[in-house]
């Protein structure tokens, strides 16, 4: 069996913030990982490979949104065998991906080269403590949605059941929901009769997904949307328990990059959520 030389080592690690929009929300996680691998090759990005019998490109994904769920805040990390300008990678990768899988930001992970293990930045998954979701419920009145949300937030605990890989499982959905409210302004701005919810949900085990919250809403208030909800993840990141805001999970990497490299990486725009959150009228209740 040919053993071959050891694969080229990782010289640079990049963290990538991308969105899954429009009709591409129907891609599964596997679809996305194949599309990204091909885009990386087409863009000529020198991705590193794992050793072993079937080498895999070193691309790892953090908490991908489910099939059918759109997202403005997905993250992946990619290991390169050479050094590339993150802004250039952002442009090249975005151009190589289909419209709807859009690269929003790329930052370099500050590497503690040869240094002690404790200086390495934490995995991005540790920073993804909560998600902010927008859920559009077509055919649901604002009043029905508002009273359901109020009943949900007033309940101390709401047990739901879901089929997981390990079989049927019962768990509480209420505790993970940090905030939940009706986005009245967004609701009024649409021309279809609907109710739009906004919520911040902590990442817990088992993970509480938007459809689990909807199950909870049905249990406490009989809220049963006539058609499948349109779910969008708006943000993921460290949760500020005082303000309820989610910070950009790439900020610590950006801040830690030494000045020389920062100039190179400086083109990357910081994650802005102003467009999304401007004029928001969230009826927010906290536990």
């Amino acid at each position, binding site marked *: *069996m*040919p053993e*071959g030389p050891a694969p080229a080592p990782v010289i640079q690690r990049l963290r990538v913030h991308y969105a899954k929009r429009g*009709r*591409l929300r*129907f*891609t*599964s996680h*596997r*679809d996305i990982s*194949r*599309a990204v*691998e*091909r*885009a*990386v*090759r*087409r*863009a*000529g*990005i*020198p991705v590193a*490979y794992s050793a072993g*019998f*079937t*080498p895999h490109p070193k691309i790892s994904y953090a908490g991908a949104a489910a*099939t*059918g769920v759109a997202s403005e805040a997905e993250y992946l990390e990619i290991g390169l065998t*050479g050094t*590339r*300008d993150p802004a*250039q*990678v952002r442009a*090249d990768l975005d151009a*190589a991906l*289909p*419209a*709807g899988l859009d690269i929003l930001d790329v930052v370099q992970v500050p590497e503690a080269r040869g240094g002690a293990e404790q200086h390495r930045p934490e995995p991005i998954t540790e920073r993804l403590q909560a998600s902010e979701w927008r859920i559009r419920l*077509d055919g649901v009145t604002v009043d029905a949605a508002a009273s359901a949300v109020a009943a949900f937030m007033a309940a101390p605990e709401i047990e739901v059941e879901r089929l997981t890989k390990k079989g049927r499982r019962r768990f509480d959905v209420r505790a993970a929901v940090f905030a939940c409210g009706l986005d009245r302004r967004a609701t009024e701005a649409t021309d279809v009769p609907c109710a739009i919810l906004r919520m911040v949900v902590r990442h817990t085990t088992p993970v509480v997904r938007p459809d689990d919250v909807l199950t909870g809403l049905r249990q406490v208030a009989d809220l049963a949307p006539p*058609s*499948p909800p349109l779910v969008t993840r708006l943000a993921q990141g460290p949760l500020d328990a005082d303000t309820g805001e989610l910070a950009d999970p790439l900020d610590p990497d950006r801040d830690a990059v030494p000045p020389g490299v920062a100039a190179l990486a400086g083109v990357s725009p910081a994650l802005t959520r102003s467009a999304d959150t401007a004029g928001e009228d969230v009826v927010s209740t906290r536990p």
Partner: protein
Amino acid sequence: MPVESIFPRLEPLLPRVQKPIQYVGGELNSQTKDWAEAEVRWALMYPDAYEVGLPNQGVQILYEILNERPGVLAERTYSVWPDLEALMREHGIPQFTVDAHRPVAAFDVLGVSFSTELGYTNLLTALDLAGIPLEAADRGDEHPIVLAGGHAAFNPEPIADFLDAAVLGDGEQIVLAITEVVREWKAEGSPGGRDELLLRLAASGGVYVPRFFDVSYLPDGRIQRVAPNRPGVPFQVAKHTVMDLDEWPYPKRPLVPLAETVHERYSVEIFRGCTRGCRFCQAGMITRPVRERSITTIGAMVEQGLAASGLNEVGLLSLSSADHSEIGEVAKDLADRYEGTRTSLSLPSTRVDAFNITLANEFSRGGRRSGLTFAPEGGSERMRKVINKMVSEDDLIRTVTTAYENGWRQVKLYFMCGLPTEADEDVLAIADMARRVIQAGREATGRRDIRCTVSIGGFVPKPHTPFQWAAQCDHETVDRRLRALKDTLRRDREYGKAIGLRYHDGKPSIIEGLLSRGDRRVGKVIRAVWEDGGRFDGWSEHFSYERWAGCAEKALAGEPVDLDWYTVRERAEVEVLPWDHLDAGLDREWLWQDWQDAIDETEVEDCRWTPCYDCGVCPTMGTEIQIGPTGKRLLPLSVVQSG
């Protein structure tokens, strides 16, 4: 009339179906042209699920060729799974293309590629969802021309009622010729309506229009005569042959889907046609003569195709890929070019006798040696003489021994069951061969982890082959022989555990046999099956033999023919076969002689390196064998890395 996208109506249904991404389109290298600017509009269909249909080479090639032409637009459509079909019916959504989600009924031509007959019921689903009348006779000027192509179109008689037209052979040039006829006819203001357009297509001699041929039957059920019923329509319809593959280097920009599909590789056809002369092989008979693509075009296509797609696997396709006159150079030069780029090369369809270890080593350079696949097809030497698969058991053992010595651990062997003249011992001989393979592997390597997988398919006699006259083996006999083989292997303590056996029961082959050699009367059976809910017959979880057998009995009740008549009955030389007016170039007398040679266990050589044996194709079709060597080589690529 503006043609609008149905996507806004489809989108709300997608969260409720399995794998919704397959209905979304937006594949890399797909294109959406302006509807109003196009003079001729094609909807191209592969009548199976997206995951099978998307990688189909035929559809991808025609899609690209048509869209390259100004004034011509082509979009793709695939079969929707029953879950979406039900929702589309509930919400009144028509069959749509995945490119711009336009309703299929709005196109000028619906071209359907049939690789297999098991897609016939899916054609009916698509027509029905599209709002196109199932029977061609019920269609009006406002409906698309429903046109069949692909290998199954060499006998389109079972679906003749549902088709307006069919074409035989290579599609590259004929789709453009058809486009011109449609363009002219539309530019003239569509004179004479649908009938006139079909007549113009039929008069060319290159398009078969079933309605312009009448079929009459003898009292015993056999066909009496097939003859044109319109002046200007020739008695025979000829197949199309692209002579210079280097002039048609497609697909140039392969479609890369977001959804997972059965093949995730860039495929290049390295030659078309095969003259090995395996008597069961319809593809080898109807695609003659051999036409090679040159090493330089292959190299350029691989380079361009990989750059355009980001794929990292290349498949060099043909009916017997190691037979390319410069395959050694192709393999070495491509392996050199892509060394260290994690691009893998594969060579499907390799004959035992054409295999050589240098070649195999090139293809697995730096990669895995997972498994090698060979197709002896027949278990006994006698059986292989009947089918003209001239591979001796000693050849095979020599080949696998070399492979095992060079690091391979697993060999897959393909066979058929139910071949003409087959006896029980011919099938049991498969077990002996598999034992020898394991034994050779153990001796060559001194190891015990040697595996051999035996895969067995049911033989189906096909039109335009020497076996077109043969009686198909009944499914009870096939099942009995397979059970006996399985028992023999299971009882074998020394080798049994090292041999895997894969097979299906014989019933689906009988239905495939009905559809392969059927005539126009079989259309009633197909329609009855479809009305009874028959869908996706190529999928074992959807296929129902009982439904087919039951519907055949009912639909053919008033006829002197039945399921057995179409399948397990041997035909005489004088019998008019349903496809005799469709010309694949093969001389009928030569085919009959080859059938007699089969029964006599007489083999025929390959005409590429022995004198012509007059199969008839080259003189009839005005074609000739086109093979190398060109003597050219591929230079290393200068890779420009971005960033």
